[in-house]
């Protein structure tokens, strides 16, 4: 009803200082909610991009059944690693690059000592197209990256330390040993040319060799255990996945990064819980502020409520008036807070924030952002919440008896 809404607006503007303080509470609360959401979005997108462009690729192709037996690193469940097969994959829209990998369990032999190691064999030229961030994890490994040393190998810092200690005791070059595809143990000499700066789960005892070395060692010429696929837009992953699965047939399984890097999905849902709890706490605090303002307003305006009742305003309209006032403050504070939050987020987005994820020493730049739908949602929550928290003060106002209210309560 127009009259009540207009009256409510004037009442809101009437005690300017108090309205401003309440608006400030809402502004900070909603602003923080939006900014935290923006930071978290940016962080999660960086995390996803980090995983996609640094570890898993957007999608992976395996032989059917490979992922179920992944712990045994079954070399028999392999896929073609040939330009023809890559072409077939690259024909799918949005696919930009394909890189082969062989994952296998090996040993590094130095003199009399042997150390177990998880190995990844990659084609550096292709690998860094799919996972460009990976390049930065290889320290002093120029010879590995550019292919200058054909038998180059890089290992994690922890492995490197252990191997260097053993190397001091022998003059023999290190050899990489592994059971080949048929189960026969075979070996190849390798040169340690650098280290891998990785600390993630399952990454501590890891080594990289060139794929041709591994193919020789494992008798897997022209084969790989997995193919990594890069796409031009991570939002297209589900579409590409379906198209690729259809093109390759049931003999192969196509998985998205989410199915491979489950720990990222888990981390993301844990972060979501934290963000929601923080947002709820801020929301509760600011809404209590609104409730307090409304209660004060009812107490101060007791005589006025009595006057309104005396001239014939019904109880339901007294409730409606105070609810209008609260919703106005809620909506106005929500809009202001969301605007400030969105501006801060936009500024951080342009500027970029350098962050180092826990467990990694490779910093990345994240760009916070918020979806417009979240902003609309937050403003709606602030207004509705203010309305709900004003129910009690409004009800109290309406329960006053006219004669008591006129006497000032």
């Amino acid at each position, binding site marked *: 009803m127009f009259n009540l809404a207009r009256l409510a607006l004037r009442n809101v503007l*009437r005690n300017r200082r108090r309205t401003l303080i309440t608006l400030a509470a809402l502004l900070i609360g909603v602003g923080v909610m939006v900014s935290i959401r923006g930071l978290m979005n940016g962080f999660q997108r960086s995390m996803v991009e980090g995983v996609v462009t640094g570890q898993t690729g957007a999608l992976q192709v395996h032989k059917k059944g490979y992922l179920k037996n992944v712990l045994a690193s079954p070399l028999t469940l392999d896929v073609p690693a040939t330009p023809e097969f890559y072409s077939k994959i690259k024909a799918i829209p949005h696919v930009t690059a394909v890189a082969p990998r062989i994952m296998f369990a090996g040993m590094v032999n130095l003199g009399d000592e042997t150390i177990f190691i998880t190995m990844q064999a990659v084609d550096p030229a292709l690998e860094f197209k799919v996972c460009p961030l990976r390049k930065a994890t290889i320290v002093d490994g120029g010879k590995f990256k550019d292919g200058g040393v054909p038998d180059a190998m890089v290992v994690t810092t922890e492995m490197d330390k252990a191997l260097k200690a053993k190397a001091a005791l022998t003059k023999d070059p290190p050899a990489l040993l592994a059971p080949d595809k048929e189960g026969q143990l075979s070996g190849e000499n390798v040169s340690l040319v650098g280290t891998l700066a990785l600390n993630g789960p399952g990454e501590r005892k890891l080594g990289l060799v060139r794929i041709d070395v591994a193919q020789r060692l494992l008798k897997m010429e022209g084969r790989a255990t997995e193919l990594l696929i890069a796409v031009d837009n991570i939002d297209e992953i589900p579409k590409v996945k379906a198209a690729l699965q259809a093109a390759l047939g049931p003999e192969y399984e196509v998985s998205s990064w989410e199915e491979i890097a489950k720990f990222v999905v888990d981390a993301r849902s844990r972060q979501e819980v934290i963000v929601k709890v923080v947002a709820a706490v801020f929301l509760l605090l600011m809404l209590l502020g609104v409730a307090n303002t409304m209660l004060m307003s009812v107490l101060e305006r007791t005589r006025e409520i*009595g*006057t*309104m*009742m005396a*001239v*014939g305003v019904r109880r339901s309209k007294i409730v409606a008036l105070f609810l209008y006032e609260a919703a106005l403050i809620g909506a106005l504070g929500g809009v202001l807070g969301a605007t400030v939050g969105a501006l801060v987020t936009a500024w951080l987005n342009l500027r970029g924030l350098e962050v180092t994820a826990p467990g990694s020493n490779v910093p990345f730049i994240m760009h916070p952002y918020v979806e417009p739908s979240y902003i609309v949602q937050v403003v709606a929550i602030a207004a509705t919440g203010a309305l709900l928290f004003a129910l009690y003060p409004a009800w109290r106002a309406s329960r006053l008896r*006219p004669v008591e209210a006129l006497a000032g309560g």
Partner: protein
Amino acid sequence: MSLVSLKGVKKSYQLGKTEVVALKGVDLVIEKGEFTVVMGPSGSGKTTLLNIIGCLDRASEGSYRLDGEEIGHRDFNDLAEVRNRKIGFIFQNFNLIPVLNVIENIEFPCVIRGEGGKELRDRVLAVARDVGLEPHLKHKPDELSGGQRQRVAIARALITQPQLVLADEPTANLDSATSDQIIDLMLALNRDKGVTFLFSTHDPRVMEHARRVVRIHDGAIVDGTDSAAADVARMHASAH
């Protein structure tokens, strides 16, 4: 048919653990067009009486007929309707709505029952003219003097064309010159437009002009219960 008819009206309320009896069985009849003053010392029950007649409070016992209709048992929301349609209020503290200007304060009782438009605006302007508020129509209450505020309250009480206007100490917060103007205004409205007024007051000037005085003491009417008797009493008084 009398406008107001109270029979055996009692009002008691709890004050802590003690029961306070404010009205001890009041019988009172007010006819249309009267200009009546209720007088009595503080705590005598005159405000309680006005509150019950104004439907701001309900009697604990007894019957209250307004314009022939028994309304003593109605609930507060029903009474809101009665207050809006049949009764106008003028308060000692004016009780205007601070965020509304003069026009909006005057039209407020009509607007809340859904009236609007040019017809209402014309009525508001006519009432404002009657009470002498024409130069101040856009002013907010805090921009008006006490007398002007009370004129707004009178206009607000009259806009609904009520059958009864209740005025609780309407001149208590006004200086004597302003009081006189306000009393003259109400007398003129009574005389020219037939508006029924019921006052509670200590102000001797209001009493001077009253056509009937009801005296209340300790919750009971001691003089002036029914209007015919009052007229006789007044005639005697003026003859002496």
